[in-house]
């Protein structure tokens, strides 16, 4: 074979090989998704249902369809278009794989290494309208490692699209971090160990992630099982130059002051029908007092409806419907540090959209279709 021919053959083989493994077939990208109303970034319902899409991003949101153009338009009469929902407490695809409890300080562990991209829970999440999830190492260490934020669909070649894999840093406080053979064995031990760790990090001694959090360049979330864990978290971790969020579902209204004063966000949920009225009211009160509140669902431990159930219950507890809608997308995007990519229907963000048959806060609203990066990845059976 001549040299040129060899090059051509090699090139063809390479091209076909890369298309098989590197990039999967691209989905049909639409030009616009048309409903009756859409959910604005602040969570309110706005009577403008035309979402224009270009290059996988949201290009514009309008009330009228206007002139035509290249590409398909998907129409859903009477529907409400919401941004893809974001669940911060998910363990999708990583159930059982993230527990690593040998070292209580494990900043190097990454949830990304535990992901099973082909897990069917991703499809379940998509069909419930959840397009982005934050997956963390299991909260069994004081310092658990870093979280990973991925999309539940729309990745290429069977892989997941990773929005972020360098954070936030994950802490945990509560009985689940105690050990029997090594420290910490108690609340005081945990608090003392955490404080010592942070002191060393502030002095420049420790894992890079810890140092970054200590000097304010990396954000963090902390799982708090009980109200006292929230207090410990605020006293040991919060600082004016740091970005911290607390994952806690509880009824202690006395914690709100600490959260507000230290500018700490709250991630509450999942909540179920047996949740106490006090917890529902406390969550709602936090939101109206000015705490940045995101709601979480915890798929797959909880059912795929759990994020919307939590939101509906928070509204019964007194949360404003707009804040509750924002708490399922805009606010969690901010807490996960991916607000420049997803979480709102705003020009420039990824075209991750959920088409609901009605207000997403109504539990009898159905998911009609889901779009990720402008391509439809789910369509409800008729």
């Amino acid at each position, binding site marked *: 074979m001549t040299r040129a021919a060899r090059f051509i053959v090699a090139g063809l083989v390479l091209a076909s090989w890369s298309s098989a493994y590197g990039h999967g077939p691209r989905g049909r990208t639409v030009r616009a998704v048309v409903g009756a109303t859409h959910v604005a970034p602040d969570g309110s319902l706005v009577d403008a249902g035309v979402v224009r899409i270009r290059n996988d991003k949201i290009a514009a949101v309008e009330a009228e369809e206007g002139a035509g153009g290249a590409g398909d338009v998907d129409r859903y009469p009477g529907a409400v278009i919401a941004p893809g929902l974001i669940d911060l407490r998910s363990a999708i695809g990583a*159930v059982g794989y993230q527990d690593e409890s040998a070292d209580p300080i494990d900043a190097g562990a990454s949830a990304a290494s535990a992901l099973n991209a082909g897990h069917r829970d991703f499809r379940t999440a998509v069909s419930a309208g959840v397009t982005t999830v934050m997956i963390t190492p299991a909260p069994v260490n004081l310092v658990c490692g870093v979280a990973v934020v991925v999309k539940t669909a729309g990745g290429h070649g069977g892989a997941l699209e990773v929005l972020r894999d360098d954070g936030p840093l994950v802490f945990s406080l509560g009985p689940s971090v105690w050990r029997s053979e090594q420290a910490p064995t108690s609340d005081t031990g945990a608090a003392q160990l955490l404080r010592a760790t942070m002191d060393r990090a502030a002095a420049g001694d420790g894992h890079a992630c810890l140092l970054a959090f200590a000097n304010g360049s990396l954000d963090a979330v902390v799982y708090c099982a009980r109200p006292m864990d929230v207090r410990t978290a605020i006293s040991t971790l919060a600082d004016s130059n740091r970005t911290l969020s607390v994952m806690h579902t509880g009824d202690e209204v006395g914690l709100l002051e600490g959260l507000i004063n230290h500018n700490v966000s709250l991630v509450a949920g999942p909540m179920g*029908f047996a949740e106490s009225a006090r917890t529902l009211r406390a969550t709602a009160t936090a939101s109206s007092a000015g705490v940045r509140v995101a709601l979480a669902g915890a798929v797959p431990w909880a*059912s795929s*409806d*759990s994020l919307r159930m939590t939101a509906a219950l928070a509204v019964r507890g*007194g949360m404003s419907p707009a804040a509750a809608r924002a708490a399922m997308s805009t606010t969690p995007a901010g807490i996960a540090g991916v607000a420049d990519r997803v979480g709102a229907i705003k020009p420039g963000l990824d075209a991750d959209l959920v088409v609901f048959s009605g207000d997403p806060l*109504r*539990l*009898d609203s*159905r998911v009609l279709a889901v779009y990720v990066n402008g391509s439809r990845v789910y369509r409800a059976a008729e």
Partner: protein
Amino acid sequence: MSDTRRQRHQTACVRRAALPCLLGAVFAAAPASAQLFDSETVIRDARIITMNGAVIERGAVVIKGNRITNVTTGEPKMGLLTKVIDASDRTITPGLIDAWSAMGVMDRAVSSGEVTARAWDGFDRYDREAYREALAQGVTTLSIGSPVTRGITGTSVIVQLVPQAGGAAGEALDVGSALTINLDSGASASDRISVYQGVREQFRTARKYREALELYEEELEEYLEKLEARRKKEEGDAKEAKKDEGDSPAPKEKPDESGDEEQKEEKKQRRKRGGGSSEGQTDSSWMTQLIAAADDDDDASASEGDADDPTQPRPRRRGRRGGRAAGDPPKPEEKKADGEKKEDELKKPEPPKPDRKSEVLLRAIDREIPVRVRAERSADIENALILSDEFNLDIIIEGGTEAYLLADRLAEADVPVILGPIARTELYQDNEYRRHDPAAVAALRAAGVRWTVGSGGMSRSSARFVGLNAQLAAGHAGGGVDWLSLVTDRAAEILGIDRRLGRIQRGARANLVIWSGAPGEPDARVEQVYVDGQLAYRAPTGAGGGS
């Protein structure tokens, strides 16, 4: 006529008229006197969702006592004593019904769950906070059964959250509304077998009890006839003897009197038994009863030659106890050789010992009460269908996690299903919810099964959000299912109380919820709740908080 005479005449007239007038007033007022003290209440100018096919955009509901007496478009006629409640811009719906609830009973089963146990006995009226929260979400009526224990667990009760003194709530609409059976066997196959066989045995015992009763009735009739015949014969003999000897017939009257007395006693006992009351029995545990029943079964079957049931337990041989026990047919009398045959033939048959458990089960077999069977796994649901076939029961499936796998059979048998929580959290464990699928409701609907949702009967506090559970179900059912209907008229129809509850119509109980907006909208709040015509809840004014 002179003045005085006129006066006297007038007084006399008045006096004469007074008595009839007074009597007339009393008689006229007597039947209405009760109503006189039940004043009318009108809730006016509201949007009324009647669940009866019509939505009245602006109308009124008229309540008197515990009933709805009228539903009108526009303004109704109002009397002097009518209390008027203005509900402009509000929406009125029937009170919500939780068709499968555990509200008001202990979370953990304390009772051993017997046939004669009544859920109503375990109901706590003073769980005030819980009732207030339920009413704050519009829930007025609950169907409550015994939780958790397996087998036949007793009878359920339908409770209305009618306000009682001291902030308590709860009145029974129907105390023994249904028999409850828990066939749920979790993941254990051996449990499934033993629980199912236990239930079957109790029903078979009930059948045998009825057979024994019927046999006793026949024998009693025969006995009385023979007694009558002998009495006549002896009368005849006595007359002849009298002719001859002139003896007093006194000694001959004895059989007469005793016959009458015995007849009276028998009639009394028959009447008592026919009432079929379900009073609690203070017997030993159901296990002993089961062994005893099986024991008698064994003896009876030995005498009847019924040896074809391999599933009957074989307890150790016990000596015959004094007297007869349930399920035993009277032994054939032994013939005495020396001419006492006559008396033996006329020995009064003994009634079977009263079996309160079988009496309850016979009401289910006679379809006087439905049978709610808790079953999640398809095998347990199948067993429920087989049980209902074998004993002609009117069953309702409670739970039905895997009912969608048997949807066609359930539709064919017209067995309704009351689902629990549509969103489950125990999905990664090997238990009865392993095959839980929210899409199951769509399958049930497509097959034409009658279904609704309750809160699930497991947690005391989830009854208040049965409406949200219904919304989830309506969503997963695929459009066209009204969530409100699931917890009002559909729940009432499946529970068999739809003439009294579930709709706003004349004659129905006055269970009404006044909402601030369209119920189901996220910011719609419950403002007032009426149960049986009484104001059971009023939302605190001011703060926007819900419960």
